[in-house]
């Protein structure tokens, strides 16, 4: 079975981010999207610890302990950047001012419920950070994840079995097998990896899928 590489997934997400967008890239896989943003677009990255206009990692030796991203890694501030406190930063998120955020996930449900903050394991120490604010705040919430778990179980589910981060909040899912929109009518497949078919993708996913733009049979 063909799969999109992580780089291909990141490049695919980057293609959908328009010129002028304010964007928050979550920790992990979504961070890779920054490396693929088209050079001819001006896209402003937000990091919730208090920076708009975040630039790439500094040169070795030029790190600054007071200039970090949400993952606490050293970053840079681009010309035009601004700093602000946490209440303002989360107002940008909760208040719907970000055009887009890209998040990782354990599971996404057919209604767009997101689970990405807690495995629910009894011995796990819970930590949530800004996940719940990002999930419900941005105008478009994109999830980037492997389609299947390491055990081959689908991560697109009827109902999340992990504790949810937000309800009905995900707009689009980018996986290593497909790009899928979550619509009021259900899951609409926009693209599939070469060689994949809708019946095969449906079988792997275990949830109803239709091709985008094709009306489901009554």
């Amino acid at each position, binding site marked *: 079975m063909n799969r999109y590489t992580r780089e291909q997934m990141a490049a695919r997400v980057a293609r959908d981010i328009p010129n002028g967008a304010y964007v928050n890239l979550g*920790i*992990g896989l979504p961070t890779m999207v920054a490396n693929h943003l088209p050079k001819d677009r001006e896209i402003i990255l937000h*990091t*919730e*610890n*208090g*920076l708009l206009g975040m630039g790439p990692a500094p040169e070795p030796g030029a*790190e*600054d*302990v*007071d*200039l*970090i991203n*949400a*993952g*606490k*890694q*050293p970053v840079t*501030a681009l010309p035009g950047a601004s*700093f*602000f*406190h*946490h*209440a303002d*930063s*989360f107002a940008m*998120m*909760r208040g719907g001012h970000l055009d887009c955020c890209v998040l990782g996930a354990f599971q996404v449900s057919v209604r767009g419920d997101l689970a990405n903050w*807690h495995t629910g394991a009894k*011995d*796990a*120490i*819970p*930590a*949530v*950070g*800004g*996940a*719940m*604010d990002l999930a*419900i*705040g941005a105008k478009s919430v994109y999830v980037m994840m492997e389609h299947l778990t390491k055990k081959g179980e689908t991560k697109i589910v009827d109902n999340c079995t992990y*504790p*949810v*981060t*937000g*309800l009905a909040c995900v707009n689009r899912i980018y996986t290593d097998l497909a790009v899928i929109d979550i619509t009021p009518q259900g899951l609409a497949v926009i693209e599939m990896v070469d060689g994949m078919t809708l019946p095969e993708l449906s079988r792997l996913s275990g949830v109803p899928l239709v091709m985008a733009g094709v009306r489901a049979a009554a």
Partner: protein
Amino acid sequence: MIDKIVPSAAAAVADIPDGATVMIGGFGTAGMPSELIDALIVRGPRELTIVNNNAGNGDTGLAALLKAKLVRKIICSFPRQTDSYVFDALYRAGDIELELVPQGNLAERIRAAGAGIGAFFTPTGFGTLLAEGKETRVIDGRNYVLEYPIRADFALIKALRGDRWGNLVYRKTARNFGPIMASAAKCTIAQVREIVNLVDLDPEAVVTPGIFVKRVVEVPAAVKLVAQPGAAA
């Protein structure tokens, strides 16, 4: 003459009592007022409630305060990090209480306290474990959760420069919780890298007006530290 400058970190925290609720600024170590925390450890008040985004990194700063067994409860959004082993051990042993709050709710609850807001409805966390048992309401077709302010007896924050009136400016992403915590505590103590004259801070650029700050202590920058990549937010 108003003079909020105190001579040392020890003098600045000398009246923090047992059982106090203390906000501590910083996101990870950026903006963490380490010298004020060290002074607090030396003073040694017990049964503290601490409000911070995290629960300490490594063995210094907030982690050292936890290790000294001075903290009964921590209110934070992201305790678990690659180097939060001090908190992890206390939590697993049942020696510390954790109130986990989504980061934006944490910030807004602190802001609300400083702004005199009685409570507020937020969409963040609705339908999740972290909103269980809380009052909810549908407003304009959207679901919200009722959240209450977080107030503190003291706030320990770090800024770049301050003056004797308590006006503060910060440095880059070290600003994070400083301005909102300053407004939410009865007594806010700021450690600044440099104390400057009243005329030296541009009124247009002051981030925290001095009305929110009770004490300012100068702690010159130590050796330049290199940022340590940690775990997530």
